[in-house]
């Protein structure tokens, strides 16, 4: 732990600051594209799960179960080596984006499904009786009601995705964690363990903490509002009975 106050070690980290910035850039870039992919997949499979059509529900279920019950690291390795050994390698960052996006997409699908299922059935029927098409129904009636339930857990999944970019290390990626590790073990740069880990941990924290804090504050706010509504309702029934 002595390295944490050593000026030499900190100087080394400062001299190689571009390495950390590059890693941060790669991590953020991977995360952003993976998030977009995960959102698209999540919405598609979430809608499939709530469509009421048996075959679509089964497809969505199988996707979600397979993705949620195997580690992301295994999926990433599988995907990467399968491409590499068949001679179709698409590069490490794109591989990471697809693997992370598909993995998180399963979690997003569950979040979307739960959000849609939380909307009372009467809303669907009311919308249908008004002659809305499927898209209109979802867009005007269901989505605005479920978005509040969906967003907090979705932000949590985004935080998980950002943290999971570290799994690129196993296929030799250039994300923040991998570059930090090659920095501390490198021949010319080695040794500055404490400052390097502190910097990279701090960078992750700066990105993830505001997101997860927002999500939890939001969640508490929603819960309180629900309780208030419930309270008013029960109060209402009491007065009715009287």
């Amino acid at each position, binding site marked *: 732990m002595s390295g944490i106050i050593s000026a030499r070690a900190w100087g080394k980290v400062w001299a190689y600051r571009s390495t950390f910035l590059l890693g941060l850039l790669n991590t953020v870039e991977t995360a952003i594209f993976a998030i977009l992919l995960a959102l698209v997949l999540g919405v598609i499979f979430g809608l499939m799960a709530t469509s009421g059509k048996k075959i679509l529900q089964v497809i969505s279920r199988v996707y979600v179960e397979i993705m949620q019950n*195997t*580690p992301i690291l*295994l999926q990433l390795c599988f995907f990467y080596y399968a491409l590499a050994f068949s001679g179709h390698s698409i590069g490490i960052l794109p591989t990471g984006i697809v693997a992370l996006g598909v993995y998180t997409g399963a979690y997003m699908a569950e979040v979307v499904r739960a959000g849609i299922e939380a909307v009372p059935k009467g809303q669907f029927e009311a919308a249908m009786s008004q002659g809305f098409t499927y898209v209109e129904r979802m867009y005007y009636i269901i989505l605005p009601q479920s978005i509040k339930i969906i967003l907090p857990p979705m932000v949590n999944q985004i935080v998980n995705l950002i*943290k999971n970019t570290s799994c690129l290390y*196993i296929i030799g990626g250039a994300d923040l*964690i991998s570059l930090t590790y090659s920095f501390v073990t490198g021949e010319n740069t080695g040794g500055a363990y404490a400052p390097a*880990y502190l910097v990279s941990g701090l960078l992750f924290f700066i990105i993830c*903490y505001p997101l997860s804090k927002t999500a939890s504050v939001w969640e508490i706010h929603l819960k309180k509002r629900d309780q208030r509504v419930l309270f008013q309702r029960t109060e209402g029934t009491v007065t009715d009975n009287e």
Partner: protein
Amino acid sequence: MSNLEASFSILGQKGVMAYILKGTVFTLIIALIAVVLGIVIGSILALCRNYCTSKKMKIFGILATVYIEVFRNTPLLLWIFICLVFCPCPELFNRKLFGLTTVETKLLFKAAVALILFTSSVIAEIIRGGLNSIAHGQFEAGHAQGFNVVQVMIYIILPQAYRNVIPTLLSQVITTIKDSSYLANVATIELMARTKQLLSAASRYNGTGNVNVSDVFVLFGVAALIYFIINYTLSCVVRSMQKRRKRPVRVTTD
């Protein structure tokens, strides 16, 4: 298709299946230890964060909050790397154990410490959720019965809190089993690491002299199947538990 047959023949080789299964056992043991110790550490953290609000105890509350937030917002792999360098290894693990070499045991210990620290921060938040779900009247009732703070916690609050979060804790077991695959990054001996090692040695086993795509499919397929069977079983248990709980509670009043 002969490549595929060659790949399947890897599994038939002497010792390969045993090698994989031993990795599975290590995965399960590591995850179990991480969750059990995580529950112990997590409970302490959750109690500190929630109830250390008086002036004298405030520092513990702040420390617990900082610990939880720091570990929750940084990746596990970072903590594995940090523990490899900074975690001291006691004499007990500085030797040959469980049929592993000294270096492997040390690595396993240090990486497991990282997993435990990481998991305990997540479990702390789960338990805190359980604590928050308990009605305030329970505390008052406990105090009214003459229990002191510690007794109220142990006899009244914690048992209810644990009961409420059992499904969430079980799904955390699934997450921990999956997270333990991160240990493969530092060449420990759990399932994921062993699968990777087998793949890199596949050219020797499959008889064709080089690694083929089918090897990737077969080896990772087996590992994925093992993970899937374990985790899917657990998630089915979680789901049936949640379903049972959702049923409305009948309150009988005479």
